Each structure stands twice: as structure tokens, then as C-alpha cells.
């Protein structure tokens, strides 16, 4: 039964390993918990989930898997037939819903469908294009898809119990990583880590020590040099919504990769093109905006700037006042881009559109001109070239 839970977690996108699973079994064997489901929820989380951004995925898998069980049997390690679990869950279903499950191809199929729905929702949520303002409601409620056996986020459970915790999906906002596929991009981003010599005196400078000791007539004179620190600072601007929806996944990979690479990384979102304001949280984009002027005053000019956007839009959106699709902009976007580029000499534009299609869009041409040709495709090769440009 627990092995199955383990695989369900893996399927649900929680990066669990066998070692961690064995740790959980060991903890159960040592009777760390008495046997209530609430305790088990916490214990399994402590053992298996190592990052709060995965808590939400864990909650979803847990809720789906343990629906209908309130107390664990005395010996958890005894194998419990899954049939039993299934029956437990089915007790809670109405005939109509059972019919629905059958029509969907049975329990397994239903789980599969649920998983897909959740994945789809996660993508959109991160893309920030469709879920703005609905953050507090259940995804399934919102979609009118709600068979009792697997509903999530609607359980009117006892106050302050763990059941409530996983049904609430408190940690949804922390899930910002797309794990798979970031490796390649990470490799390319390492290029950007340029090692600058700064920081406290730490390493022995052997050459200088020998020289000054000799000068000192043999009396030791130790010389130190500063150690190397990763001093690269980055401002990342991501286009969201509209024509970028197709590219959101690639951008998220880039985003989650960069977060681990630099000491100073600030990211901002914009829609289609850069205007007077950007924002940090897609769900609050209408209330919490940051002025680009303020931004330029806050971050020193040694930050390196990376824009990620497909630059595919009407040319008016770049070169005319009032061209923005979302609001009335007093000054054309081109002016704002120019200002940013004046403050930050090291800047590149990464474009997820395939390079051979760039010629078909006027707007891409305009942006390339504004960027002084520092536009690169969002591929490994493009990243390499872009990072080299930034590192100069």
C-alpha cells in the first residue's frame, strides 16, 4: 500500500527517492507516530518532501490517495489490499458519481484524468494567464468537475486538523519550479557565473608570500588574496500572457534554472512589451506594480538584464503611445526599453520563437534593432551565445 503511495507521489511530481522512502518506513517501525492519519500526513511529509514548493503537490496526492481514511490500522506495514481502499472511497460516492467513474473508464482512469487536470491547471496557474483572481477557489469547483471521491479543496473537515491542511492547498503559491529539463539550461547559465575577485582576504597568495618573506630576510610575511565569489547580479524580465502562452513552459524552465544560479536574481513580469510598470506576482499584477523608474533607481547599473519574450505583437505596441493592449501608456514602449538599456549596458533578449521565423514579424525586427541585435533564440546554443554576450 505504501509502495503504491510512493509511486503516486512520484507520478504527482514530488521528487521522492528510495532512500527517503526507506527512512519513512524506518520511522514507522520505530513508532515515531501513534497511528492517526494526521500524524502520518506530517511524518510522511517530513521524510519525503524536502522543499516547501512541493508541499502542494504532496497535499494533492495525499488527499487523493487517503480519501476516506481517518485512522491508520495499528500496523501500517501490513499490506492492505488496494481493493479495500477503493471500497472505502466508494462508500462516499453517490450512484450517479459511480456511474460517472465507470463512464470515465474506472477508478484508475479517473485518477489519471484528475492528474492531468491538475497538471494542466498548474501550468496555467504558473503562466498566470487564466487563474488570476481565482486563486482562492478550488480548481475543480471552478471547472464544475467534482466527483465526490476525489474532490479537493472542498472538504468541510474538522477545524485545525491535518485533513484541512492538505485540502486547503496552502502551499500552492510556493510551487514555482519545473524540475525536468532544467539541466541543459543550467549548463548554459553557468556561463554567466563570472568569477570576480572580491570579498574578504582569505586565500594564501603563495607567490607574494615567498617574495615578501625573501624581502623580509627570511622572516615569514604571509600574504592573502581575496577568495572568489560568484558576483553576477541579474534582473530577469518575463513576458506573460497573450501570445506567450505557447512558450510559458520553456520560460518556466529557464526561470527555475536561474533561481539557483545567482546570488542576486530579481525577476519581473510584463505583458507583451515593457512599459512604465512591471510586476512580481502574477496574481497581484493589478495591485502590486513597480515603476520602471523606481526599479532603475533600486538596482545598480552592474546588474545584467535578461528579457524573455517572443516580441510578437503589433508594431504599434512598441512604437506608439497608447499602443499597449492592457492600458493607456503615455510613452511608447520603445522609450522605456531604451531607458532600461541606457542604465544597464549588459542586456540581452531571449526569444522562444524559432530563429528562422523571426523575419516574418515586423515587431521582432524592431525589438532587435532596439536591442542592438542582442536577441538570441531560447535554445541551448542561443543561451550560450547570449551568456557570452552578457559576460563581456
Amino acid at each position, binding site marked *: 500500500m505504501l509502495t503504491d503511495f510512493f509511486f503516486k507521489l512520484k507520478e504527482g511530481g514530488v*521528487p521522492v*527517492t528510495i*532512500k*527517503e522512502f526507506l*527512512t519513512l518506513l*524506518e*520511522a514507522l517501525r*520505530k513508532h*515515531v*507516530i501513534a497511528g492517526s492519519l*494526521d*500524524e502520518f500526513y*506530517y*511524518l510522511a*511529509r*517530513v*521524510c519525503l*518532501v*524536502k*522543499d*516547501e514548493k512541493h*508541499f502542494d503537490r504532496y497535499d494533492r496526492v495525499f488527499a487523493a490517495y487517503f480519501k476516506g481514511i481517518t485512522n491508520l490500522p495499528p500496523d501500517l506495514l501490513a499490506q492492505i489490499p488496494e481493493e479495500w481502499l477503493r471500497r472505502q472511497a466508494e462508500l462516499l460516492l453517490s450512484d450517479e458519481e459511480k456511474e460517472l467513474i465507470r463512464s470515465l473508464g474506472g477508478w484508475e482512469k479517473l485518477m489519471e484524468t484528475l492528474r492531468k487536470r491538475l497538471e494542466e491547471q498548474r501550468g496555467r496557474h504558473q503562466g498566470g494567464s487564466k487563474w488570476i483572481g481565482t486563486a482562492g477557489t478550488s480548481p475543480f469547483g471552478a471547472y464544475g468537475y467534482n466527483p465526490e471521491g476525489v474532490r479537493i479543496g472542498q472538504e468541510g473537515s474538522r477545524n*485545525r486538523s*491535518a485533513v484541512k491542511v492538505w485540502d486547503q492547498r*496552502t*502551499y500552492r503559491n510556493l510551487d514555482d519550479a519545473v524540475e525536468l529539463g532544467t539541466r541543459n539550461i543550467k549548463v548554459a547559465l553557468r556561463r554567466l557565473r563570472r568569477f570576480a575577485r572580491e*570579498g*574578504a582576504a*582569505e586565500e594564501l597568495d603563495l607567490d607574494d608570500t615567498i617574495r615578501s618573506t625573501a624581502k623580509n630576510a627570511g*622572516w*615569514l610575511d*604571509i600574504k592573502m588574496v581575496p*577568495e572568489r*565569489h560568484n558576483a553576477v547580479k541579474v534582473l530577469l524580465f518575463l513576458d506573460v500572457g497573450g501570445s506567450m502562452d505557447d512558450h510559458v513552459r520553456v520560460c518556466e524552465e529557464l526561470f527555475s534554472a536561474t*533561481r*539557483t544560479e545567482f*546570488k542576486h536574481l530579481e525577476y519581473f513580469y510584463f505583458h507583451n512589451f515593457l512599459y512604465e510598470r512591471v510586476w512580481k506576482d502574477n496574481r*497581484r499584477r493589478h*495591485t*502590486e506594480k513597480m515603476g520602471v523608474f523606481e526599479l532603475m533607481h533600486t538596482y545598480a547599473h552592474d546588474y545584467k538584464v535578461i528579457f524573455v519574450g517572443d516580441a510578437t505583437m503589433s508594431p504599434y505596441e512598441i512604437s506608439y503611445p497608447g499602443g499597449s493592449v492592457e492600458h493607456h501608456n503615455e510613452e511608447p514602449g520603445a522609450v522605456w526599453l531604451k531607458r532600461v538599456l541606457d542604465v544597464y549596458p549588459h542586456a540581452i533578449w531571449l526569444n522562444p520563437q524559432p530563429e528562422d521565423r523571426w523575419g516574418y514579424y515586423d515587431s521582432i525586427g524592431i525589438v532587435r534593432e532596439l536591442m542592438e541585435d542582442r536577441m538570441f533564440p531560447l535554445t541551448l546554443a542561443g543561451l550560450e551565445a547570449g551568456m557570452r554576450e552578457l559576460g563581456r
Partner: protein
Amino acid sequence: MSRFTGTDTYVATDDLTMAVNAAIALERPLLIKGEPGTGKTMLAIEVAKSLGRPLIQWHIKSTGKAQQGLYEYDAVSRLRDSQLGDDRVQDIANYIKRGPLWEAFESETPAVVLIDEIDKADIEFPNDLLRELDRMEFYVYETQQLVRARHRPTIIITSNNEKELPDAFLRRCFFHYIKFPDRETMERIVDVHYPHIKRSLLREALEAFFEIRDVPGLKKKPSTSELLDWLKLLMAEDISPEVLRSQDQHKIIPPLHGALIKNEQDVHLFERLVFMSRRGKA
């Protein structure tokens, strides 16, 4: 088996006690994350206190090295001593300085080790501690001596999430994320610290506190430790609950707000928002 259940000065939620007890029972490190000021560092201190075990603290700096936790060999002093003809120079052990982990491994009773703010150090730092945390032993090359833990210490590691930690390291730890306390827990926490606080003052203060935390766009949200400081000030100044509730235009932000809002921009933002909302009501 010793179990941790919180102390009279520290309120631990069920999930937190569970995590600590798992770490104690399985003798594996516990990694604690959470918003600043939610009592991550205090946890280790309280665990040591409640179990009656010695606490060994290791605070990490940005220049910190994993090796410093084990031992340091002061080659420079030895070189200097050799030039001065000091006798101590013959024995290399004189120049080996024990680090906090060594102290913990050698401790007569099982110790509690706090590795504070591990994310401050270099990315490689946690990787350099894998074997030490796993097997609880290390080798001193200078003296060719193997140091092995007499009792596996309870290790509590805190992180402020400034860097992501390597997977291999995470696999070896238990992980707990301290959520920001809800109102009820917060009342318990305040109770533990200031048992004699006036109910009405506490109610108004918490009201104001959670209101401030809800202000969108604050650069630094006030945390538990800041609330406690603020309450202490309020009590020291003997401020009455009515003042906190006052709708007076001139006193739009709570008294002594400096303890809660630490950033000038935040103060401005807050003033503006409160002003606007008051004007809306009038």
C-alpha cells in the same frame, strides 16, 4: 526515548514536534525553513533545553567552510612558532582547533547541534558535509585520527532559503517548513512570553499586526519576533488598547510602529494605504 513536546517558552505546533521527534528517534539531521522571525533558531535552543542536552551552535557566514565545523589546522601559527623555536611546534596536534561538530561527536552525552543559516555559505558547503552527517565520523589527516561520534547528536539546520540546497544533502535530512502562525497559535505564543498581558490590548494589537501583514506590497512583513518586541514596547509604555483602535486622522499608524515596520518605503506605503482607507470610510 526522549520526546520533544514544546517548552514553557516555546510553542511548537503538532507538525513541528513530529518533525523534531522523528529527527531524534532516527538520529538524522532536521532541516528547518520558514519566514524570518518564526523561531527557527530558537527551536534548537529549546530542544536542547527540554531534552536537557548540551547545545553546540555553529553559525554560518558567507565565507564559512564545511571544514571549519570539523577542525582547523593553523599552519600559519605553526610556521611562525617554528621560526621562534617554540617547543610546541613538535606536536602538530597543538595546532589543530576543534570545530563544533567535533565537540558534538566527542560529547559525553548526546548533544544538540545547531547549524544556523546554512544557506549563507557557498553552494558547495552542504555537499562537503554529506559523509559527516551520514556516518557521523570524519578523518583528521594531520594527525591521522578518525573522529567518530560517541552518540549521534541531534542536528538542527536552519535555512532562510537564500540558496537552494543540493538534493544529495536534502535526501539525508528531515525537512520541516515553519508556516507563519495563525491567529490562534499566535495568541498561544504571546501567552507564553507575556502571560500577564491585558486581553484587550492583545486583541487590538493582534488585529493591527495581522492588518499590517495583509498590506500588499510590503517589502518586509513583520514576523513573530517583531510582534513580541512591539508588544513589549506597548506594555512598557503602558499604551491603552483604545489608542490602537483610534480613528484619529493624525495617528493613522499604530504607536511605536518602528518595531514592526523596518523599512522607510514600507512606512510610507502603509501611511498612504491607511490614509486612503480612512478617507474612504469618512
